[in-house]
């Protein structure tokens, strides 16, 4: 029995077996390794959004290009609401589970098993054969309670038979910080700005908190510094241009009966902040043995390890705020100055001095995975596959704060210094059994899959904090004065899942297509009254191009319409959430013994979130396969969201998890590609994709209403600092809405801001109850544009990402241009140029003064955002085979690639506030011996 070698594009890999794409009614996007590498040889996840507009990587404006920040991904919008609200995050009350788990993260499947975003992020792209993005009910229903956020299936490169192939891939990269969004003042400009703000105006003429004498003294100091030529460009100190390299070495070969492959990889990713890095390495061995004509077994064992370190230079924002007229070194000794004194307020520590201390934040993790697969061809039509995977992972992270660190100033000698150590282990076991039946009877094609899987995942974490370090030579727990008692954390969780599914595909004459899937999931996380969850989907489609009359017309090589509907689920709560639990009272025994008290109020009815999803797709390939058009529409309604239900205090608890709430995502997507030139030696292919998603909250819970009130309270309590908008939950609103008070602009007569209150009147005070929806970050249209050109051995690939419409709250304007505390931080140059000065000035920003004008969210800082990002460009060249004759090299390809070339945006704000963005240039060589 021969295995069919089919082109990757022709099958849909569901992770539970492959389906012929032509007869499948679900929607799936398949991306090959080659395509991924064209976009980025290092970042698989970011590359995916070029190929499928339904995938969105949420831009992290804070962490920029930090190699240790994992991306946040969504497929077809947000359907779930995180258990950790924005206020929880601000107040530090979010649970660890909620912080670590993005409720909208798709399910990642690697060779049939659930894996983590982190594993994929650190994976060597050379090991990936293809990626299949499953996004509708028909394609994801077999994943049941894990399917609602979409499923991304990764398939690794299998061993190839034949003589031993050795392949080596090298990628060298140069990565440099991208500071184009920063526009800070230099020393002279900063001095001018301070003077303009009233630095040397006598008290009485300006409102200030510091005396005239102080200000004059400060003015003299600054003038003298500026005249000495001091103009420190602080941004350059923590940054560096780094060279990174990545190596993958693979051996594969063997006979038809026994094949193997061995892969070793190493890569480092040094970030643009000094000494921040992520280093990955791995080895995997894949054995594939054909025991008989009918039975094939394979085993894959792999080990991977990652080391990471965060920059010892701290947050980038520490540098952007420093005054350019300060000099980091003491002019006489040449040593770093410890701190700078300000004209008013506390001293500011010199981050460069702090960097010389022994602070560090490092971590590592490793994973060992063993996959065993069995493939039994019972007969021509029946095939049984079974597999068992076991994996063990261990993570460790360590953070040390030096006793001399400014944050330790207020502690006693024996309490200074902090060493935080946390360890975690994860063990998971997976078993799958799938029976496949595939048969053609006349014009009928039947494909049935019956299967089941079990999964157990155990995690344990322990965290300790030690304090009291005398010097940093001995940074070990035993040299600490004490274990910082309140900061010992331990948690563990076991979750188990068992599921069975039946999935069938039927086609008649390759024209009429039907799909049906059903799955029953049992999970230990569900409440005891809802242990088992059913999921299903139905799909139908027509391949018009297979009608005889269409075949005679040579216009369409493919013309099809498919639709499917079904219900999938998502579990968005920690494993014990459904259970009532007790905690042991470790302090304070009662006279008659140890006590236990209620810890959580369970809900035995707690269930998975359900998404009813309808998906319709139209695909056409025409003009001699030159033009390819795809259109799709979806309507996903997520019901019974897991949210907090509030309780009267007399129940002893304030809330419990309940299934309430409804969120809708309606969207359309398109994909057009056209082969402008299609010759043997030359080709030009252009493509554009786009998507539009409308997210609407249809129903909210009582606790979310209460949360909205606490957001209002938060703003009232924080009226004297700059605040950024916080999400509120309103029916009819969206999970991407921006809330704030509608601004009527700056009054030209007074320079004061006028707000529109909820009753329609104008007021000069910002009231948190006047907040309404003032914008939405969701784009009207977003997607990618690609251009692929090849001529002989050269291939050029470029990709652009675009966004049209949608708003953004420009916090740079709010806090660094207008809300700036001019005497204590540096600021955007617009402070000097764009602010109100005189009566009847029609400007966007209020008057500059020595006392900061703090901003609460106002529509004045909402801006429409459209951008065009030159995402990647790559040029590759394959060496002529003839040239390689006799060298032992059978294939050689060289690629130059650049990512994040530039961004054109309608919004000018600082990007990468804690960690800057970067541009990367890669040079790769792929050699096969």
């Amino acid at each position: 029995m021969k295995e069919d070698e089919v082109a990757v594009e022709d099958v849909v890999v569901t992770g539970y077996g492959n389906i012929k794409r032509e007869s499948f009614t679900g929607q799936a996007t398949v991306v090959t390794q080659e395509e991924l590498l064209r976009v980025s040889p290092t970042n698989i996840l970011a590359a995916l959004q070029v190929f499928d507009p339904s995938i969105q990587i949420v831009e992290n404006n804070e962490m920029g290009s930090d190699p240790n920040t994992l991306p946040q991904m969504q497929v077809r919008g947000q359907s779930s609401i995180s258990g950790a609200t924005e206020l929880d995050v601000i107040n530090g009350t979010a649970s660890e589970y909620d912080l670590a788990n993005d409720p909208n993260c798709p399910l990642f499947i690697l060779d049939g098993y659930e894996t983590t975003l982190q594993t994929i992020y650190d994976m060597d792209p050379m090991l990936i054969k293809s990626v299949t993005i499953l996004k509708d009910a028909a394609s994801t229903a077999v994943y049941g309670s894990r399917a609602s956020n979409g499923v991304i299936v990764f398939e690794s490169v299998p061993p190839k038979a034949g003589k031993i192939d050795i392949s080596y891939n090298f990628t060298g990269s140069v990565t440099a910080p991208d500071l184009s969004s920063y526009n800070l003042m230099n020393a002279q400009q900063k001095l001018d700005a301070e003077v303009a703000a009233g630095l040397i105006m006598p008290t009485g003429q300006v409102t200030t908190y510091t005396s005239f004498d102080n200000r004059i003294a400060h003015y003299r100091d600054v003038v003298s510094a500026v005249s000495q030529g001091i103009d420190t460009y602080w941004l350059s100190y923590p940054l560096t241009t780094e060279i990174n390299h990545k190596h993958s070495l693979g051996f594969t070969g063997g006979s038809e009966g026994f094949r193997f492959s061995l892969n070793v990889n190493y890569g480092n990713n040094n970030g643009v902040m000094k000494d921040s890095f992520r280093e990955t390495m791995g080895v995997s061995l894949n054995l594939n043995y054909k025991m008989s004509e009918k039975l094939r077994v394979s085993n894959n064992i792999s080990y991977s390890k990652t080391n990471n370190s965060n920059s010892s230079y701290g947050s980038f924002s520490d540098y952007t705020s420093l005054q350019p007229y300060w000099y980091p070194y003491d002019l006489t000794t040449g040593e770093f100055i410890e701190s700078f004194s300000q004209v008013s307020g506390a001293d500011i520590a010199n981050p460069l001095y702090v960097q010389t201390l022994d602070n560090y934040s490092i971590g590592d993790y490793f994973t060992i995975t063993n996959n065993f697969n069995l493939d039994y061809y019972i007969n021509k039509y029946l095939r049984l596959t079974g597999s068992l995977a076991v994996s063990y992972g261990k993570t460790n992270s360590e953070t040390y704060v030096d006793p001399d660190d400014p944050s330790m100033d207020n502690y006693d000698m024996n309490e200074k210094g902090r060493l935080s150590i946390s360890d975690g282990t994860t063990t998971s076991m997976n078993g799958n059994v799938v029976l496949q039946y595939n048969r053609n009877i006349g014009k009928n094609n039947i494909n049935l899959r019956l299967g089941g899987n079990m999964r157990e995942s155990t995690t344990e974490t322990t965290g300790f904090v030690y304090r009291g370090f005398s010097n940093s030579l001995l940074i070990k727990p035993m040299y600490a004065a004490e274990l910082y008692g309140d900061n010992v954390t331990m948690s563990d969780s076991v979750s188990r899942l068992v599921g069975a599914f039946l999935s069938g595909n039927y086609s008649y004459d390759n024209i009429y297509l039907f799909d049906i899937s059903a799955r029953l999931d049992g999970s230990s996380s569900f409440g005891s009254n809802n242990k088992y969850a059913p999921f299903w989907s139905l799909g139908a489609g027509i391949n018009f191009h297979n009608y005889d009359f269409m075949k005679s017309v040579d216009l369409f090589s493919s013309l099809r319409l498919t639709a499917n509907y079904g219900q999938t689920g998502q579990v968005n709560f920690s494993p014990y959430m459904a259970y009532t639990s007790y905690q042991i009272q470790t302090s304070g025994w009662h006279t008659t013994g140890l006590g236990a008290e209620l810890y959580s109020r369970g809900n035995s009815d707690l269930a998975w979130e359900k998404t009813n999803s309808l998906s319709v797709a139209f695909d056409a390939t025409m003009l001699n396969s030159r033009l390819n058009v795809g259109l799709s529409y979806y309507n996903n309604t997520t019901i019974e969201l897991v949210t907090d239900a509030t309780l009267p205090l007399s129940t002893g608890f304030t809330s419990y998890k309940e299934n309430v709430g409804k969120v809708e995502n309606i969207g359309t997507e398109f994909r057009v590609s056209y082969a402008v030139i299609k010759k043997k030696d030359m080709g030009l292919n252009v493509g554009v994709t786009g998507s539009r998603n409308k997210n609407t909250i249809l129903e909210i819970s009582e606790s979310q209403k209460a949360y909205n009130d606490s957001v209002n309270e938060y703003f009232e309590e924080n009226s004297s600092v700059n605040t950024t908008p916080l999400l509120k939950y309103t029916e009819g609103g969206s999970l991407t809405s921006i809330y704030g008070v509608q601004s009527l602009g700056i009054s030209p007569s007074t320079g004061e801001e006028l707000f529109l209150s909820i009753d329609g009147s104008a007021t000069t005070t910002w009231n948190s109850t006047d907040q309404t929806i003032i914008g939405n970050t969701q784009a009207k249209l977003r997607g990618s544009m690609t251009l692929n050109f090849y001529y002989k051995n050269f291939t050029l690939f470029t990709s652009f990402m675009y966004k049209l419409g949608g708003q953004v709250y420009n916090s740079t304007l709010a806090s660094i241009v207008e809300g700036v505390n001019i005497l204590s931080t540096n600021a955007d140059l617009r402070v000097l140029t764009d602010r109100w000065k005189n009566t009847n000035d029609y400007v966007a920003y209020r008057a500059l003064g020595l006392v900061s004008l703090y901003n609460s969210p106002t529509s004045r800082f909402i801006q429409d955002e459209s951008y065009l990002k030159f995402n990647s460009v790559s040029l590759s060249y394959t060496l002529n085979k003839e040239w390689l004759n006799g060298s032992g090299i059978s294939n050689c390809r060289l690629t130059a690639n650049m990512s994040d070339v530039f961004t054109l945006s309608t919004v000018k704000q600082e990007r990468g506030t804690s960690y800057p963005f970067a541009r990367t240039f890669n040079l790769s060589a792929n050699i096969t011996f």
Partner: protein
Amino acid sequence: MKRKINILLLLLLPMFSLSCDKWLDVSSSTVVLEEDLFKSSAGYRQALNGIYVLMGKNTLYGKELTWGTSTAMSGIYDEDVLELLPSLEDYLAYTEDDIENEDLISGIYDPMWTAAYRVVANCNNLLAHVVDEDPELFEFGENERDIIEGEALGVRALMHFEMLRMFGYSLDEAGCDEARLPYVTDFYETAPTYYNTSDFLDLIIADLLASWDLQRSYDVGVNEYFTNGDDGYTDQFDTGYILDNYEDEDASFMSARGTRFNYYAVTMLLARAYLFKKDYDNAYYYANSIYGGTSSGVFGTTTFWATPSDDLLMSPYVKFKYEILFAAHQEDLVENYNIYDTDENSLAIGCAEEVFSDELTYDARYTGLISSDTKYSKRWVYDGTYADFAPVIRTSEAYHILAECMLREECSEYNPASAMAVMDVIRKARFGMPYVFYYDLYYALAGQEETLTNSQMLEIVWNDIKRESMDEGLYAWTEKRLGMGLSQPFPLPRKETDYNGL
């Protein structure tokens, strides 16, 4: 071939079988899932012990329901001193009648309410499990099961009763018909029912009667040493006390009954609840069962201190230990109190001279327990063996209730002379110097036609409650019951009024 498929299907079937259910039940090692806790006798004990630990917190008996709010609201403390004490200046709001003060709402009322109902929730979940539990599971069988259930019911009633005192209206107050307070009996309740004072009291009494019934057989039948051990008393706080019937077992859970809500404490609380309800006959009955059952044992013995001396100021005497029927327990009790007992200032009993008036020099409750110069109280400051106990229910209350009932004409036991005789038992015990018996006083005056009036005699009883309890917080009960205290009850937490429509 067909057979092979059948075999395969059979292999798949176990996945759907019942064994799945078992496999899907998981447990944790950092929290205890309730199913795991209530698998063993030890788990039940922990759940019950935990309830008492919660009751000992500062929000409840560790502070607010004893020497904190409960004392301050009766105007016991010196206002000038309160003003000087960190974080206690809020208490001034009580005497200034500024009850709806935001600081008190967020700092005292809401946490107190939350803590009390958290205790109720713990009781309810324990009750849900213990009610149907097989007595065989417990080391001490039916007796242990019964006292666990009985105590949980009793504590549930006690917590609700405390909330009635703080947040509710007494029957004399205008708001008593308002369906104001929730009586929660189901842990999974999401919409509790709110009751008016009279119905609320009936629910408290019903729980107490059930508790009384469940605990009687052990505390009266088996644990007969509760009031008759060494020197006439079992040490009700001694965990080492081994019961005759269970010599071979570890009986620590079954002893130290004074730290848990035992039969006698329940009896006393029943009397208090009936008195609050103005059901004087029933109040008399239950108070008398403490008085009658112990008249020779409690107040008649030598261990009750009659002559104040320096020794008395050392624990256990300072807490009147032998008279405590139920005390909450908190390890940091003394430490927490001492925060307010500094060299410069201490929680001075401002009303002391007025309360003891012309008996200042006789009554040991003044001479022994209140410093004559600074007027600070000595009850909470002494560290020692019994320092961790916060007295909640005392035998002396039985005397006060008996006396009051006998002074109420509605009571079938109406008998002012006997009432005065009962009061005299206390006076006899508390006075170290020659004193006047009220009984004699009553008759002497009666002989001269000008007898003590009922209201005078009630004043005598109530005044004695104040002397007895002083900064233990019990006098607030009397004030509440008689509508003599604060002008209004504490406002309910907003997270409660959203539900009861008030």
